[in-house]
């Protein structure tokens, strides 16, 4: 135990403490950055101005996917898909790669598909339509983690997106 002024037994280490104060200041800046990042949507939910809500594909070409760049495990998420009805068939197929049902739990699909079937490569939803463009919303709960590439395809068009799931 060190002695301060020859009378006070105290384990003071002012060098360590000043280093600590510097680290604290840096950490406060980092904490501010985390909050700003969260406000800008880097932890999910789109954020201010919905910067992290992205669109892929083109509804004029028959397939457009609206999704969020960042998801959180266990937190509800949505993917909106705009489809054009198939010209040759009364039913419209939407094929999704297998990451979709491996890393996401599908809570609800609106409108409900008339048929769903899984293959080795993924899962296919068949929708009945009134011969005009329509939108399908998938209500999901992510249960995987990390980067998740997804492929959406109809008979005419393919769209690939990548989402990231935080723990």
């Amino acid at each position: 135990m060190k002695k301060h002024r020859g009378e006070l037994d105290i384990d003071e280490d002012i060098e360590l403490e000043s280093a600590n104060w510097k680290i604290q200041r840096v950490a406060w800046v980092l904490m501010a950055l985390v909050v700003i990042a969260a406000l800008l949507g880097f932890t999910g939910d789109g954020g201010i101005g919905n910067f992290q809500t992205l669109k892929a594909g083109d509804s004029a070409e028959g397939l457009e996917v609206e999704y969020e760049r960042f998801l959180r495990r266990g937190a509800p998420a949505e993917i909106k898909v705009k489809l054009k009805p198939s010209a040759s068939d009364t039913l419209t197929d939407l094929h999704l790669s297998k990451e979709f049902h491996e890393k996401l739990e599908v809570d609800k699909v609106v409108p409900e598909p008339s048929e769903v079937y899984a293959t080795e490569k993924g899962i296919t939803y068949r929708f009945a339509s009134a011969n005009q463009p329509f939108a399908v919303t998938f209500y999901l709960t992510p249960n995987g983690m990390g980067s998740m590439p997804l492929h959406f395809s109809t008979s005419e068009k393919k769209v690939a997106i990548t989402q990231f799931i935080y723990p």
Partner: protein
Amino acid sequence: METVIRGLILYVFLMIIFRVSGKRTLYEATVFDFVLLLIIAETAEQALVGEDQSMTNSFVLIVTLLLADISLSLLKQKFNYFGKVLDGVPVIILDDGKLLHDRLKKVRVDEADIMESARALQGLQRLDQIKYAILEKDGKITIIPKEQEQKEIEKV
């Protein structure tokens, strides 16, 4: 398995975040500090338990957290410097009757805080009755009065 990982991650995260927040942050100086602490506890609970509400999960979690704490205290005992880095060290903020203003600013303590402790712990009335004031590791301020004051206190 997931419970253990959750517990350890949260343990380390909380330790770091409270360490870098500084000693006086959330030190129960006001009622609001206490309320904030409760809110943080409530928020941390979600990250700890997730959706698993089983008893097994709670037991595993409690054992994990306590074991982490015991291991850490053993490490601190063995490696003195490690303990200092983790817990910080006491800082003298009033030295031989003189306020050390640069340190006060760094640790976010003012004269009023020192006087509060002086009143509570020693029953002192004025700043000039204090010889040393020390900000301890846990954020408390301890007071050593000047010698003539000490004698008076002992007389009473």
